[in-house]
């Protein structure tokens, strides 16, 4: 089975061809920021990016495919799974009937347009907006602020599957806490494969290399009303310029580790504090599962850091064994989802 994977990121489009679960090739098309600035909305980039997809297909002489899969975006709340891209989905994207603007929103359009060339089905898998929360997890202490299910669904679901496989368990019989640790951080209790809570893709919980995470609410209120800060400035310091970047001027974990190794005490305190907060969030989410946990699964780019893993493991290993699945693995996760459907292991879902 040949599956083409298209994953639009902020400044790249990643394209890969899978022959069953083997990656035949992967290409990354890069865009410079000045080029992208010309497009007021993400959706305006579709034509340009689609042209590049076609060029890559020509380059690799691709003339047959079984399916195309695109990275899923910020759709309305959906159950996890593999969705066939239909016209309703495309219309929702084009009419901005989405929960937020994100470059991944155009993944489905690129996949659908490409699939039409080959007359094969197109899918998305486990989009960011998968919502499988327990109702109780939706409540915040302010009625108009709902706790929203946004997380690194694709990698979290894949990691849960890998964890089940490693422990030789049926995923239906597992309870995990899965922590995706990358430039953003998601910590989720995963009960029988379902993501029943999450730190709202870091709008609560630990700070990350680029995001501020949860904050003392009234301090933020004071700051907003102080007149000293622009809304845009605060917003950037919450997402993009917060966390490690705000303290240390870099989101590059390796640089931070180097600074710690040569005795930079600020770097050490901030690193330790981040790990401390990640540990607390994992502890909180373990409680959601009432302590019945088969393993804590750590994944994402930061888990290549031994320092992080060692430090974090010492905080959380009392809960359950800790297993590490490094990297982000979005391309694999997208391909694998579609292959499960093509092989009849899983039913595709209809977007309605």
């Amino acid at each position, binding site marked *: 089975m040949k599956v083409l994977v298209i994953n639009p990121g902020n400044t790249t489009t990643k394209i890969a061809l899978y022959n069953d679960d083997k990656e035949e090739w992967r290409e990354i098309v890069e865009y410079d920021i000045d080029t992208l600035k010309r497009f007021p909305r993400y959706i305006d980039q579709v034509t340009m990016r689609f042209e590049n997809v076609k060029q890559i297909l020509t380059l690799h002489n691709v003339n047959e495919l079984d399916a195309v899969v695109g990275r899923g975006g910020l759709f309305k709340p959906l159950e996890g799974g593999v969705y066939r891209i239909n016209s309703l989905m495309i219309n929702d994207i084009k009419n901005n009937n989405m929960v937020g603007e994100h470059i991944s929103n155009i993944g489905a359009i690129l996949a659908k347009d490409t699939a039409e060339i080959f007359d094969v089905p197109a899918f998305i898998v486990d989009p960011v907006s998968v919502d499988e929360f327990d109702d109780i997890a939706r409540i915040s*202490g302010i009625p108009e*602020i709902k706790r929203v299910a946004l997380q690194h669904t694709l990698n979290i679901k894949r990691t849960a599957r890998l964890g089940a496989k490693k422990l030789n368990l049926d995923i239906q019989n597992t309870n995990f806490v899965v922590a995706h640790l990358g430039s953003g951080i998601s910590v989720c209790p995963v009960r029988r494969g379902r993501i029943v809570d999450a730190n709202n893709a870091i709008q*609560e919980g630990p*700070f990350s290399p680029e995001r501020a995470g949860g904050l003392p609410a009234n301090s933020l209120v004071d700051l907003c009303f102080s007149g000293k800060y622009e*809304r845009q400035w605060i917003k950037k310091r919450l997402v993009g310029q917060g966390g490690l970047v*705000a303290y240390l001027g870099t989101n590059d974990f390796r640089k931070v580790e180097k600074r710690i190794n040569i005795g930079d005490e600020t770097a050490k305190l901030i690193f330790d504090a981040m790990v401390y907060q990640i540990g607390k969030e994992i502890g909180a989410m373990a*409680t*959601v599962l009432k302590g019945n946990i088969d393993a804590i699964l750590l994944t994402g780019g930061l888990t290549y850091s031994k320092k992080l893993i060692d430090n974090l493991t010492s905080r959380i290993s009392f809960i359950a064994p800790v297993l590490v699945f490094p990297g982000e693995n979005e391309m694999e996760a997208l391909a694998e989802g579609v292959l499960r459907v093509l092989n009849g292991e899983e039913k595709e879902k209809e977007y309605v």
Partner: protein
Amino acid sequence: MVKRKRKSTYKILTINPGSTSTKVAFFRNEEKSIEKIYSHSSEELSEFRKIIEQKNFRWKFVEAFLQKIDEPLDAVVGRGGVLKPLEGGIWRINSKMIEDIIQGNVQADHASNLGPVLANMVSERLNIPAFIVDPVSTDELDDIARVTGFPEIERRSKTHALNVKAQARRYAREIGKQLMELSLIVVHIGGGLTVNLIKEGKIKDILDARVDGPLSPESAGSVDIPQLLDIAFSGKYNKEELSSFWFGKGGLVAFLGTNSVKNIIERISMGDERAEFYTKAMIYTISKSIGALAAAAKGKINAIILTGGVSFSKFITNGIREYVECIAPVVVYPGSVEMEAMAESAIMALRGDVEVKEYR
């Protein structure tokens, strides 16, 4: 420090000004012999803009109580307020402390700030030492616990230190250990709600419904921060209105119209599903906070103590227990022992068993 001659019986007056009452008690050693709770209606209090202005109004009640006591007092203790960040323990009330309170050099305008002021008035009249114990502004957080992902904002601690530490000492006594050798999570659920991690006798980290912790009967707890930013700049609320979600208007009261847990529990027993759902959501967030602090202590927790007025509710304590008993045994000490804690600490100080700290 001059070692005082040990007496067999110490006589202590304790004063605890709350938002709608003033509690005054007379202790002979650790035994409470008289206690009066003077309630104040919101009409009575409405004429005062700032809490410090209630000083003379509240003094009348303290004075009335003093007239009932015909034995000489050895010390007076006021509830420690929301002063500047201080270590826990027992502090002598001095003129600098009173000055700071009167000049508003404190972290919040809070009824407990009248504690040192009223105690000081007793002290001056009777010429006896005056103390505060484990003030609300007790701040013993680990450095690591102070860091947020936003450099302009630091995590700080304001907590029910008095009751929390007293209940922790009680647990240590009951199991025959020293508090210093235990790690405990103490959850105070009353008007406020704090989840406290106690290690080496200090409150090392805290999750507070008024800041970033669980939702409580009247506070919102942690919320999605970007959404809060949007609301702050929406023009829909002024600062006071928005802040009030953490001081009286958020949490259960926002959903159920009351902050009375007694009332809510009654509604649940009569089959009110909404009341049950939101109360369970509170239980859920409290439990998550306990789990978070357990990880902060690397899981080495000797016990989880549930205390405060709301801990009389079995629905709530059993609900929490179900989530967290995997971490450590859950002990329920309902109610508050603030008056007892103040007297107990004063006696320890008079006996020379603990060092009295000097406020500067």
